[in-house]
């Protein structure tokens, strides 16, 4: 599809030299002077467009050529020329001082292509206001003399202007347009347009009479015209009906009196106070003529949407129309929602309609995307109408993630719905938080597309009640990803392939003895099932899923887990109490050996764990003494030095730093001694022999951190100092001999020895060692200017410099 030819064309267009370009400009100018425009002119214009658009740097046209193109755009009746001139002029800039004049006389109706140029070169809000005024004047005028589509582009242009600066339309304009929209939406012709099927020889006057419009299923239409009505041809106001509905939602959202928020509190008060007369009147549609234009538009929009919902129940004859019906349902429910937010009295009329629609669609998962706006409606107005919304939430948080996790669009829209209504959901819908195992399925399936959404949503899912289970779920995300792949495969290929070519993991997925494991991963709600039981069997699960470690989907998922873990930990420290934090440390230690064996995944997770272990202990130093038993058990296992180096190093550091009386008064001499002995044993083992087969040498960082930790502990219980000093001097002696079995790199050995010597000399003076290695709190948290003792030198220095400068 994309060929060498195209690439070289772009290159040529970018690299065209200035003299050649000027020649080209003058050739085109000459071609455009004539009256007739043949293939050569068109071709040249197209090449000119390519030259201008291929580069991101602007090229300026000679002003004569520019003027000629502009006048062609405004005066020519050949559409191709208009299109090309508009495209060329858009890719360049008008010479300064010759910006398009926006105050043209309105006798010439602005063509769509000219308007495109105007819009792209608008300099300011003032220009947009002029343009919108001009357009509305043209709408106000008599029925058009021009071709059928001459008015139709005005609505899209107005909609564009609204998007960029709604204040460009004055109050009068808004009123005018509201009235016009009402006419087009509600009172468009219900006869088919002229230009009915081409007659043959024998068509008489009777067969040329247009009949009434029809519905999508072929039956004759019994009510007003909408986008879901068909005919052989269409009248102008029927076209305007389509364009009006297409911009209706945006119009209503822009000119709502409240600025679009979903808070029901304010809007309720407002409509009670000043809308009481209005709401009584709007309850009976026959007297809607008495309503002011905005309210009348709202009423007609309401009726239009109700009709669309009704029409969508019909079976369309064409597939594209069925798709359109779905899109119309979404739009209609959204409009009803925003109209009800604006005028709360309409909720009582809207709810039965929406509820019936929900009843019709809730069992059909192919309408899932239509059910999301319905859920929004329930969320906004359900409480007011005192309707039970349980079933809706069961669907949205239950069935959708469980069965439609692989629908990209549904995932995007559902997550967007959650993001936009987070406050409301947290307050009113308890199912939201408890359904996180289900929601994580979207992430497990298509991580790159939705990880962004989850970075925003995850903090709201972290609560004291769900924290531990959520952590486990995040760590098991790649397993969930693999399981979902297996689930889908199992559905598409229900019978095992006889030739034995089937996947081992698929067999395991189907076998009843492991069913429980997989079902636990696929659970829909938090708090169900036995978390601890499954953790115990995780090794088995990893074994069963071993062939999934190189599936692309699983690898992509694994890459997003560290990011989410960071978000998780950053949030959990704000909601967790001491007990929960202690539990989390235990989970960290336990899971560091229970991770799915994807290359680099384990290392990455260890890195995250180390970082946050440090943060947690820094935040609550007493945790170290509290959990000392488990931490010691971890640090006392020599195998951990090799398999979990990162975590081990940090655990050792944390023990050395915070296992002291100043962190927690429960720390006893016995505790310090037993910790010392465990660490000492590990250090002996690591520095006396080669690493176990299959493992790399221990990094020097591990050894130095062990030595530092021992020194710190010894500085708190001076009896231990001789033991450390002895070890350090022995180390120095051994390494002087040259190579050692536990380290192959000379620089590393030197670093270890240097540290050893530093610690040894420090420990020769125990009181100094104590201050350096276990500094009292006021040293580690300096308060220079607040502390009168420390502030004196600063004051003196300031005074000195002041006096010296004069």
């Amino acid at each position: 599809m994309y060929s060498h030819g195209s690439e070289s064309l772009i290159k040529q267009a970018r690299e065209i030299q200035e003299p050649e370009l000027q020649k080209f400009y003058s050739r085109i100018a000459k071609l455009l002077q004539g009256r007739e425009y043949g293939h050569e002119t068109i071709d040249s214009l197209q090449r000119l467009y390519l030259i201008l658009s291929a580069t991101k740097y602007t090229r300026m046209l000679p002003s004569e050529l520019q003027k000629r193109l502009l006048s062609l755009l405004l005066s020519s009746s050949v559409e191709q020329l208009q299109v090309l001139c508009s495209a060329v002029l858009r890719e360049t800039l008008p010479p300064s001082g010759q910006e398009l004049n926006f105050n043209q006389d309105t006798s010439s109706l602005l063509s769509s292509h000219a308007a495109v140029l105007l819009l792209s070169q608008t300099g300011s809000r003032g220009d947009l206001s002029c343009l919108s005024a001009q357009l509305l004047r043209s709408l106000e005028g008599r029925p058009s003399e021009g071709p059928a589509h001459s008015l139709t582009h005005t609505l899209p242009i107005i909609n564009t202007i609204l998007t960029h600066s709604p204040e460009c339309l004055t109050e009068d304009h808004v009123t005018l347009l509201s009235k016009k929209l009402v006419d087009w939406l509600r009172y468009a012709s219900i006869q088919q347009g002229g230009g009915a099927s081409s007659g043959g020889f024998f068509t008489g006057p009777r067969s040329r009479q247009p009949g009434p419009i029809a519905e999508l299923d072929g039956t004759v239409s019994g009510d007003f015209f909408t986008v879901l009505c068909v005919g052989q041809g269409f009248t102008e106001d029927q076209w305007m009906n389509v364009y009006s509905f297409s911009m209706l939602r945006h119009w209503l959202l822009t000119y709502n009196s409240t600025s679009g928020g979903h808070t029901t509190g304010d809007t309720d008060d407002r409509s009670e106070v000043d809308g009481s007369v209005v709401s009584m009147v709007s309850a009976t549609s026959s007297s809607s003529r008495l309503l002011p234009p905005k309210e009348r538009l709202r009423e007609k929009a309401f009726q239009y949407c109700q009709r669309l919902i009704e029409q969508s129940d019909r079976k369309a004859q064409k597939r594209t129309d069925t798709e359109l019906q779905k899109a119309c349902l979404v739009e209609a429910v959204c409009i009803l929602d925003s109209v009800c937010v604006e005028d709360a009295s309409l909720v009582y009329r809207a709810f039965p309609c929406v509820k019936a629609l929900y009843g019709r669609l809730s069992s059909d998962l192919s309408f899932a995307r239509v059910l999301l706006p319905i859920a929004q409606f329930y969320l906004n107005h359900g409480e007011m109408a005192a309707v039970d919304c349980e079933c809706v939430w069961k669907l949205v948080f239950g069935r959708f993630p469980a069965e439609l996790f692989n629908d990209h669009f549904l995932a995007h829209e559902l997550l967007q719905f959650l993001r936009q209504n987070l406050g409301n959901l947290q307050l009113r819908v308890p199912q939201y938080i408890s359904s996180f195992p289900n929601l994580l399925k979207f992430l497990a399936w298509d991580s790159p597309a939705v990880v962004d959404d989850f970075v925003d949503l995850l903090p709201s899912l972290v609560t004291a009640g769900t924290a531990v289970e959520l952590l486990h779920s995040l760590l098991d995300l790649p397993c969930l990803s693999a399981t979902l792949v297996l689930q889908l495969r199992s559905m598409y290929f229900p019978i095992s392939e006889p030739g034995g070519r089937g996947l081992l993991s698929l067999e395991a997925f189907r076998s009843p003895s492991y069913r429980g494991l997989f079902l636990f991963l696929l659970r829909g709600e938090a708090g169900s099932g036995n978390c601890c039981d499954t953790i115990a069997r995780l090794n088995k699960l990893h074994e069963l899923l071993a062939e999934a470690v190189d599936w692309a989907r699983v690898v992509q998922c694994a890459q997003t887990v560290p990011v989410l873990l960071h978000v998780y930990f950053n949030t959990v420290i704000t909601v967790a109490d001491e007990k929960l934090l202690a539990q989390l440390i235990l989970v960290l230690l336990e899971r560091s050996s229970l991770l799915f064996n994807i290359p680099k995944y384990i290392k990455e997770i260890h890195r995250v764990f180390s970082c946050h272990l440090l943060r947690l202990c820094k935040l609550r130093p007493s945790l170290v003494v509290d959990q000392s038993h488990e931490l010691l058990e971890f640090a006392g296992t020599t195998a951990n030095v090799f398999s979990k180096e990162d975590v081990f190093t940090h655990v050792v550091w944390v023990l050395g730093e915070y296992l002291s009386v100043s962190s927690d008064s429960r720390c006893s001499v016995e505790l310090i001694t037993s910790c010392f002995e465990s660490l000492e044993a590990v250090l002996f083992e690591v520095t006396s022999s080669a690493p176990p087969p299959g493992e790399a040498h221990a990094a020097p960082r591990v050894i130095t951190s062990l030595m530092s930790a021992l020194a710190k502990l010894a500085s708190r219980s001076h009896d231990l100092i001789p033991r450390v000093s002895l070890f350090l001097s022995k180390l120095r002696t051994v390494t002087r001999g040259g190579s050692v079995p536990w380290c192959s790199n000379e620089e590393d050995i030197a670093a270890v020895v240097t540290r050893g010597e530093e610690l040894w000399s420090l420990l020769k003076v125990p009181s100094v060692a104590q201050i350096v290695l276990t500094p009292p709190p006021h040293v580690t948290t300096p308060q220079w200017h607040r502390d009168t003792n420390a502030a004196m030198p600063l004051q003196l220095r300031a005074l000195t410099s002041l006096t010296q400068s004069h």
Partner: protein
Amino acid sequence: MVHCFLIHTICPINVLGAGESRVLYSRVFGPDENTLDGDLGPEERRLLQKEKLLVVARQVRSAVALSREASGQVVVETVPGEEGVALMEADSGVLRLRAGDPFSGERSALWLGIQSLGFTLVCEPHENLLLAEGTLRNLARHCLEHLHMLASGSEVLLKSDRIDVLLSRLLPHGQLLFLNHRFVQSLEKEVTAYMAK
């Protein structure tokens, strides 16, 4: 409102770096969002806009690559005449563009990947995505047919006026339209008449 429509490459290109994308057609609807607030000169504004579109193209390219990798789908080349097949086998998805990355407000980028080219619509977050999806497919189908994109020609570069006309009917000024099959037929007749010239 659709903010812009792009046709760009989603396959690796020799002369560009990995992950880069060549934009073959781009169309931004409405006033430049940088105009109304910033104090940049017109040339800088144009440059900024082009760069933003390039950022979108690159993000879509990597999204397509990841999606294809995850699904293990093999991209099959189809020949001219099999536009329907190409469209059916296309992958599609939607990408969230955060506020500031690169547009000032949040946007959604709807994409359709047909072999080595991607068609992207950048919409406002509250847009009716069902409608946008249908419109995008329709646009892609017309582009494939009228610009012979399954062949190795360069009509997408040299006949971009056809895309402009297509957009002016099916997506005028970025407005998504609720068109039933009759309205679509009527507009397509006009488009075909134009293309025949």
